[in-house]
């Protein structure tokens, strides 16, 4: 497929400034230009790769290798009890990495619980990114400092947040794009619908990336939707839908980049479906053998995002054995640092459970905090203190 297939053709009337909306009785635009292509857009193995920025390709490769290693290390940490849970994105690293790299510093990322990798690739300290999954605190970082919303556990509820933030930024005249990540299961939620509808009506600078990894825990896509593709859903809202090979990192990056440019220039939102696959189970608590066969998983392993890009770069003479080894060593070093830091027990302060409920603590919460403080003090007293002995006699 040619690169031109992702070059968003601006349909007449699609770029509508909010101050001049079309009359309500008229369709906003001819829906045909909004429809996604039948086949997912690909770069690797096509002529389009010749146009790709070599520096970007190498950067994507390095991040993919690190991401793969991160997933493996985090999964190992769950087995050691260092993480309460880890929803692995192994197989989906291309989406995660592209999502992080496509954004400018002032842009905002709205991740779901499986998007730790995107958050880390955006530059967040991995330990802060894993705080939620470690069970130390709900969010390990200041969202405003990093322009990364908290990892959202409820499905699709972060999408309207992305729309609201993008809308607010636009009202203030700031150059900010919001990128919201959601899974295939999340597209069935009401908040997905409401977010896309608000985004289109408000012409908000927001991009929705659906990582269609085949399953919502155990339920396959065919039982999730009857739509021809998830990208088709865009048309009903009046925004373009784009379909991309989610294991093709430069393709995901290119389609995202086009959508981000469009949003930044006032062209409104885009819905992108990246077709990928979750190689691991939903989480360590899930038994994926109950709902899918080995043959299917093996077929997707052959379409591995890391190997696909590695093969392309090697073929083109941009990467050699030494480069592959250096990338692996760099990833191993990252994993070793992560392991060391996660093996240290976090310092927890029980009284923190009363912190940050309200700007000012209510008298009700104050009483309860006093109660916990007393319980903690009592349990800290030595068992054989004089008072205890006195009572025993």
């Amino acid at each position, binding site marked *: 497929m040619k690169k031109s297939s992702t070059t968003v053709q601006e349909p007449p009337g699609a770029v509508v400034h909010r101050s001049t909306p079309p009359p309500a009785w008229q369709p906003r635009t001819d829906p045909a230009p909004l429809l996604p292509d039948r086949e997912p857009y690909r770069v690797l193995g096509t002529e389009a790769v010749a146009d790709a920025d070599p520096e970007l390709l190498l950067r994507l490769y390095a991040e993919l290798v690190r991401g793969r290693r991160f997933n493996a290390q985090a999964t190992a940490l769950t087995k050691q009890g260092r993480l309460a849970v880890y929803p692995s994105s192994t197989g989906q690293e291309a989406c995660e990495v592209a999502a992080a790299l496509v954004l400018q510093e002032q842009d905002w990322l709205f991740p779901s619980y499986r998007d730790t990798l995107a958050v880390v690739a955006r530059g967040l300290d991995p330990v802060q990114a894993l705080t939620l999954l470690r069970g130390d*605190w*709900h*969010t390990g970082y*200041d*969202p*405003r*400092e990093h322009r990364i*919303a*908290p990892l959202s556990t*409820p499905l699709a*509820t972060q*999408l*309207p*947040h*992305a*729309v*609201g*933030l*993008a*809308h*607010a*930024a636009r*009202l*203030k005249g700031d150059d900010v794009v*919001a990128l919201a990540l959601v899974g295939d299961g999340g597209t069935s939620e*009401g*908040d997905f619908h*409401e*977010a896309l*509808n*608000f985004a289109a*009506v408000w012409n908000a600078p927001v991009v929705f990336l659906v990582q269609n990894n085949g399953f919502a825990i155990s339920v396959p896509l065919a039982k999730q939707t009857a739509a021809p593709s998830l990208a088709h859903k865009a048309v009903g809202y009046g925004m373009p839908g784009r379909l991309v090979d989610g294991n093709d990192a430069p393709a995901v990056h290119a389609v995202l980049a086009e959508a981000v440019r469009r949003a930044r220039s006032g062209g409104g939102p885009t819905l992108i479906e990246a077709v990928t696959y979750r190689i691991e189970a939903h989480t360590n608590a899930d038994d994926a053998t109950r709902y899918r066969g080995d043959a299917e998983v093996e077929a997707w392993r052959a379409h591995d995002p890391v190997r696909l890009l590695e093969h392309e770069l090697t073929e083109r003479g941009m990467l050699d054995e030494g480069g592959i080894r250096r990338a692996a060593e760099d990833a191993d070093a990252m994993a070793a640092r992560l392991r060391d830091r996660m093996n240290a027990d976090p310092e927890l302060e029980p009284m923190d459970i009363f*912190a*940050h*409920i*309200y*700007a000012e603590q*209510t*008298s*009700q919460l104050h009483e309860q905090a006093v109660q916990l403080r007393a319980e903690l003090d009592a349990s800290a007293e030595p068992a054989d203190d004089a008072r205890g002995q006195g009572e025993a006699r």
Partner: protein
Amino acid sequence: MTTVAATAAKTARAAKPATMAQALQRAMRDAMAEDPAVHVLGEDVGALGGVFRVTDGLAAEFGEDRCTDTPLAEAGILGTAVGMAMYGLRPVVEMQFDAFAYPAFEQLTSHVAKMRNRTRGALPMPITIRVPYGGGIGGVEHHSDSSEAYYMATPGLHVVTPATVDDAYGLLRAAIASDDPVVFLEPKRLYWSKAQWSPEAPATVEPIGRAVVRRTGLSATLVTYGPSLTVCLEAAEAARAEGWDLEVVDLRSLVPFDDETVIASVRRTGRAVVVHESNGFGGPGGEIAARISERCFHHLEAPVLRVAGFDIPYPPPMLEQHHLPGVDRVLDAVARLQWEADS
């Protein structure tokens, strides 16, 4: 320095009858004029001015970017408000009717109420959620729920409800100024209640969390809020004939709860009846009665009683008078406070 004309204008405007709906509108208008971060959004809040006209004129005065008609989707309204608050705005959202707010419940409980806590204070949620609530206006089903118990059960939310025109202004100003989310319950049947009210010198902005004694008395305390305040004041007048000198406490804020004012009152009077129109079982009255019993046990001459709506889905409008606690039901409860005589 005041000119004669200005003085005359001020006098003309001062202490005119104003409705609660007008006071609420004025509160939003003043807040929007003072702080460009304040944005109003909801279904029908723009050109129509809200189905109760509470947002009347705001879009015309501040523009559609500040007072925005949204698509009809409550989760979307509150969910986008979360994102706006993350970017530093102070959204005031309207839910139009009590039971219409339920689609927004996940946003409210999972995000609005918890965001400050989840992010260790990094992302406060200064969102005001205006919910017209309660019955007595002849609305068909889904237009008369009293949903305060749901909100009270969610840590991280403030829950307030005015019962007077002054408080409607003062509490809404405080809610909008609050750095925490406030569920602002507006008693629908009091929207058109009037008071002598001067928008030029509006009442003080009430700090959230303080109850007020609306009527002093010595023989029992009626603890109430929102739409039931007028019922309780009327009951207190009627009870005088029976020799009861009733004190009436208007909570104004359900979360935080003003234990101090309630306890001081009940310790003085030795008897208490909690009055509200939402369902009794699992309702606010149970919590309030328990708090009073725990703190005033040795001062009580009788068990704390509750007068509440029945434990039924809100009835059809032609039957709602049988559900809503009225003056007679309050007086019956007061009569039952003669504990020693009965037992």
